């Protein structure tokens, strides 16, 4: 997975510092510079990068560290904490309740992988015994319903949609009601792509959320996104109650740093990642474990409790 490319750069920088004999101002600066480079190349929001650097420097006032204190450990922990807080929103993912009609709505920018991911999500849960189904509330994009239909058919997941109805809010409401009546416990709503610059599209999303009252709203983001990630994610979060993030296309080369920015903007955890166009190329994501691996530190708990 490519996010790990970022991880190995960062842990490399940390290790290099560990290897150098004296840990002074210069060594610390050098290490932070390297981490900065790695984060910027991975598209992490530049403001977050500047902030991280500042926070670590402030926490690691070398001259104030008493003799005998393990400086390396202090620095490592500072970096670890900062990265954790960037990646870990501190909120638990929304839990779905078995036997209840959970409604999960997918939102995000154009072409970021909502339709694909929503079918993957349905398929994943269906295999775990959920009674999953899909509602296509994208009436805008050409061929949107056909796309969902063909994918859902392949996944053997029931679906609802319309070729003639033009109001996505109506389709979403009708579809959700129908599947609720039929006893489905995971009703997934696919929506059109949208962006913050177009108010009407955001208003439509708000209306839809109001109408179907989702258990969770999943923000889908492409791992290749650059510096626009934070602002867009923030804008989605400001309009609807985003509860989880899915990062897609991690089978590509992008290091996915824009995604970290999305997490800090939506204050919601990454719950799944997409790693290909096929229906089973989809993995659950655990933030804590990831940060641990990211830094190549093995036993993370030791650090967390110092």
């Amino acid at each position, binding site marked *: 997975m490519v996010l790990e490319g970022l991880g190995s750069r960062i842990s490399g920088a940390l290790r290099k510092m560990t290897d150098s004999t004296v840990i002074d101002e210069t060594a610390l600066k050098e290490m932070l510079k390297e981490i900065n*480079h790695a984060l*910027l*190349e*991975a*598209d992490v929001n*530049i*403001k977050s990068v*500047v902030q991280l650097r500042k926070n670590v420097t402030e926490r690691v006032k070398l001259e104030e560290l008493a003799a005998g204190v393990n400086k390396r450990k202090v620095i490592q922990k500072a970096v670890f904490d900062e990265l954790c807080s960037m990646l870990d929103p501190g909120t638990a993912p929304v839990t779905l309740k078995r036997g209840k009609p959970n409604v999960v709505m997918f939102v995000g*920018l*154009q*072409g*970021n*992988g909502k339709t694909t991911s929503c079918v993957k999500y349905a398929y994943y849960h269906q295999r775990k015994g959920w009674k999953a189904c899909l509602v296509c509330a994208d009436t*805008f*994009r*050409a*061929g*949107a*319903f*056909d*796309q*969902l*239909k*063909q*994918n859902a058919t*392949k996944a053997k997941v029931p679906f609802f949609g319309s070729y003639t109805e033009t109001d996505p809010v109506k389709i979403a409401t009708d579809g959700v009601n129908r599947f609720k009546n039929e006893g489905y416990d995971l009703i997934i709503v696919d929506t059109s792509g949208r*962006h*913050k*610059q*177009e108010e009407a599209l955001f208003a439509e999303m708000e209306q839809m959320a109001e109408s179907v009252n989702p258990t969770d709203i999943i923000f889908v983001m*492409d791992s*290749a*996104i*650059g*510096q*626009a*990630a934070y*602002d*867009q994610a923030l804008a989605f979060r400001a309009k609807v109650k985003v509860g989880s993030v899915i990062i897609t*296309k991690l*089978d*590509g*080369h*992008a*290091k996915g*740093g*824009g995604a970290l920015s999305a997490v800090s903007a939506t204050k919601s955890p990454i719950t799944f990642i997409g790693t290909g*166009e096929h229906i089973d190329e989809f993995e659950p994501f655990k933030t804590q474990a990831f940060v641990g691996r990211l830094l190549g530190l093995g036993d993370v708990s030791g650090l967390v409790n110092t």
Partner: protein
Amino acid sequence: VFSYFKALAGMRTLTRSDLEPVMQQFRDFLISKNVAKDIADKLMESVLTSLTGKKMDSLTSLTSTVRRALDEALTRILTARQSTDIVAEISAKRNMKVPYVITYCGVNGVGKSTSLAKTCYYLLNHGFKVMIAACDTFRAGAVEQLRTHVKCLGEGVELFDKGYGKDAAAVAADAIRRAKELQYDVVLVDTAGRMQDNEPLMRALAKLVEVNRPDRLFFVGEALVGNDAVDQLTKFNQALVDHQSGARPQLIDGIVLTKFDTIDDKVGAAVSMVYTTGQPIVFVGVGQTYTDLRKVNTRSLVNALMK
């Protein structure tokens, strides 16, 4: 942003060490505008080199000197050296009674099919007859997406498709042959999105290009993309070199920059893409309807960058 760099009064010749701190600030600024980090580094390095040793008027500040040099460098990079006048090229080819072929390629979901539909609308308005070749035979709904567009676009356009699962290169060849018979002026070839590291898919693209030799091979990239822009373009071109057998492999010769309406003034991807390929931005996508297609305006692009 840069106001805290005061004028260095009395300074005569610029040295690297005068310039470096300012360079750092500008580099970060470019990154904040979504220029890929590598490109921002290279750009600032070239500005640094061009200014080192220069005499500076002691009344102008260091910042504005650097700013002017950067503005010039960006303008130079973004000014197209090759023609971007597709309409003229199509008109010229019309007399030869063979259709002008444009192929669209790029990674997944960037807006290839939509840009193709917008271009079609633009060409129909110029009185051309257009055939659309549905050569994304993989992604669910890809063919229906184009069929819907053809229906909306009305007179003068036709869809050529062979459904799903077929060899894209062969479908394109059939479409071009058919378009020639029916005397269409243009064939627009849609292809499936593919990740630049996916070798089998990159091979298939190279084959499509080699077999059909389109007049234009457009790379579609979204303005939202970050550092990956450089990697995408480098690897698409490299794959086209590696997997075409002839001595003169056809490479990307134009860029379509999409989703320009979603990035405010973070327009740096344009710089990353043009810098990486040396190819011009032929069209810019600024929305989701047929009329949302523009020619690039270098001055306003540079202004947005420097703002």
